């Protein structure tokens, strides 16, 4: 029988990590340049902070924490829409984990739940089917969030809802895409990123191929990496080796599950139910064309944005002026640069979304803040 520990044990081996750190330092030392690696995904930010990896890296390697956290990039108006949906008579709003903590302009979904709205956080999107079946007289809205990794699950949920003819299940789609976010970061005139670590779980679905254009257009190495400390350290080593050899290539570190093409069946499912949304406003990054998905016209009858169109607020709402989530998501600032970090803004009462999710950069810094590392302490 496969045990979970077999999946991670070797990838947290202290000796392997120490020897990778040594190799990284050796190669990085020979470089006369600063390497600014953007780990696109919040999961990697979490790995780097939780395992204290910054302590192991030489001075000329810096991490810039990217916009790949589905909770962090959700603009307030979308959360307000979720709150309005939850306040409708006989509506059950279903969403994933951390989403219920993110503040909208009128409060978080958790605060609306406390006021009596029926809001249910779930772990598996397919649990929504049971909720819809068990409550035939209610309207169930699935507030779908996530990057390429989680979109196929929403597609399957939709497919099953269609097959079962569950007329009371609707979708509010907030699925977003990684490559347009990378473009948005790189098109900023102040962009400092010169290497990327790409999230492996996205590429398990979409393949490593989605990063080819970035490698070619920006001349930056992209290494598709797993989430264990050995994975991240090995990916850093591969980046510094490319830099030392003067190369910029697409490389798959997480070869145990990622291929160039990805999961074609999952891609076909996404294709079947979703189409590109002409524009989506990202928290911190602003509107990015073709950066998100929406339901195909054939499934418009399940689109909560259409079903409740007359009631959903569309006014764009920016973050609190003091909140620097935008600069942090674009890699222009670190959490400690923000005036309200750890003071007005903490995980209990977050001002910005980067403090909410365990994958948000501010949250990771607040929890794990490196000690004696290059990063300044908080508090």
């Amino acid at each position, binding site marked *: 029988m496969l*045990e*979970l*520990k077999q*999946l*991670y044990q070797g990838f*947290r081996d*202290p000796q392997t*990590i*120490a020897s990778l*750190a040594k190799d990284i330092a050796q190669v990085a030392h020979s470089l006369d340049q600063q390497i600014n690696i953007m780990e696109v995904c919040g*999961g990697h930010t979490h790995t780097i*902070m*939780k*395992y*204290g*990896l*910054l*302590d*192991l890296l030489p001075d000329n390697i810096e991490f810039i924490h990217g916009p790949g956290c*589905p*909770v962090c990039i959700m603009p307030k108006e979308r959360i307000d829409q979720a709150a309005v949906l939850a306040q409708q008579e006989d509506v059950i709003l279903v969403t*994933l*984990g*951390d*989403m*219920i*903590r993110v503040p909208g302009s009128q409060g978080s979904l*958790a605060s609306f739940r406390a006021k009596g709205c029926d809001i249910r*956080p*779930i*772990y*598996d999107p397919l*649990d929504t089917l049971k909720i819809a079946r068990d409550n035939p007289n209610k309207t169930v809205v699935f507030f779908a*969030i*996530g*990057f390429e*990794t*989680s979109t196929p699950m929403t597609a399957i949920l939709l497919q099953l809802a269609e097959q079962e003819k569950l007329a009371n299940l609707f979708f509010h789609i907030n699925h977003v895409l990684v490559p347009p976010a990378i473009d948005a970061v790189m098109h900023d005139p102040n962009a400092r990123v010169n290497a990327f670590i790409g999230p492996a*779980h996205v590429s398990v679905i979409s393949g490593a191929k989605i990063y080819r254009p970035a490698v070619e257009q920006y001349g930056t190495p992209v290494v598709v990496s797993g989430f264990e*400390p050995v994975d991240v350290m090995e990916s850093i080593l591969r980046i510094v080796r490319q830099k030392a050899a003067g190369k910029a290539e697409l490389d798959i570190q997480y070869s145990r599950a990622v291929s160039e093409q990805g999961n074609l069946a999952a891609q076909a499912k996404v294709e079947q139910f979703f189409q590109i949304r002409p524009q989506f406003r990202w928290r911190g990054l602003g509107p990015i064309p073709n950066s998100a998905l929406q339901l195909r016209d054939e499934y418009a009858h399940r689109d909560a944005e259409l079903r409740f169109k007359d009631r959903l607020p569309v006014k764009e709402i920016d973050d609190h002026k003091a909140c620097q989530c935008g600069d942090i998501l674009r890699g222009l600032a670190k959490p400690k640069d923000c005036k309200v970090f750890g003071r007005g803004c*903490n*995980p*209990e009462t977050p001002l910005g979304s980067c403090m909410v*999710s*365990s*994958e948000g950069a501010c949250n990771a810094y*607040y*929890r*794990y*803040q*490196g*000690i*004696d*590392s290059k990063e300044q302490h908080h508090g």
Partner: protein
Amino acid sequence: MADVSTKEKAIQLSHGGGGKEMNKLIRDLFFAEFDNPILRSEEDAAKLELQGATAFTTDSFTVSPLFFAGGDIGKLAIAGTVNDLAMMGAEPQYLSCSVIIEEGFSLKDLTTIVRSMAKELKQSGARIVCGDTKVVPKGCADGLFINTSGVGRILRPNISAANVAPGDAIIVSRDIGCHGAAILMAREGLTLESTLQSDCATLWPVVEQLIAANIPLHAMRDATRGGLSAVLNEWAVAANVGITVNEASIPVCDEVKGLCELYGFEPMDLANEGTFILAVPNDIALGALEIMQRFGHCESAAIIGTVSDELPGKVILRTPWNTKRYLDLPQGELLPRIC
């Protein structure tokens, strides 16, 4: 033992009405199971003979589900209060027991829970000497709430979070996170199959051994809600000391590790109901550990860290590859990660 285990009988509002039905419930169930002369005296208040410094604590218990792998709300209600006394170096003596029951609650389940309480009391020798029963209309409570208060004679004074001192070692009594993990697994929505059991247990027997062996106990605390992280952070602040723990030394079983991997939780944040942390001077830490392991059924007890005067108020976690980070207090409700 009185036979109240009639099939599918349910608690009705009249069971809390102060009349015949309530008297029958109290006599047939609570008196029968908790039987002792002080309780049987049926006065308005129990008369207690107390000697010297006495510890006094109270706790209310609400748990969903009421029955979980390794225990139930009854066992929890006894162990929880008894453990709070034990952590102060007090021998648990007298407890009160108040129950708030939702109308329609199964009499069979109530019986099981009360019997479980009676069984757990035997672990410490404490007695329930007074109590109260209320029944509230359906929908006004989630099945059953229990409050227990307890008093105990302090055998070892000066055990306090403020007494954690530089030069102390930190010991944990067993592998952490089992209760939190078992409850999460039992809840709707997180369907997993596992043999994992809550650690719910009475800690007095092992504390009694430590006291008998004359171990100088600086501080003790059971790591309930907030887990190991909460206890260590509270101590660091209360005593104004820095605490460093070695991640590799913290015992965590594979099932708890696995659940944490899947859902993105930290074992150090998960609740325990029969696991305690203690701070003792470094030079007797091994002795304390041996007593816990040999006589206290704490086979997986371990020394996990040290106390110093560096970075006062902070808890630092040292990873197996010798990097450091803060071990912060857990915040907010535990929600599974998204991807």
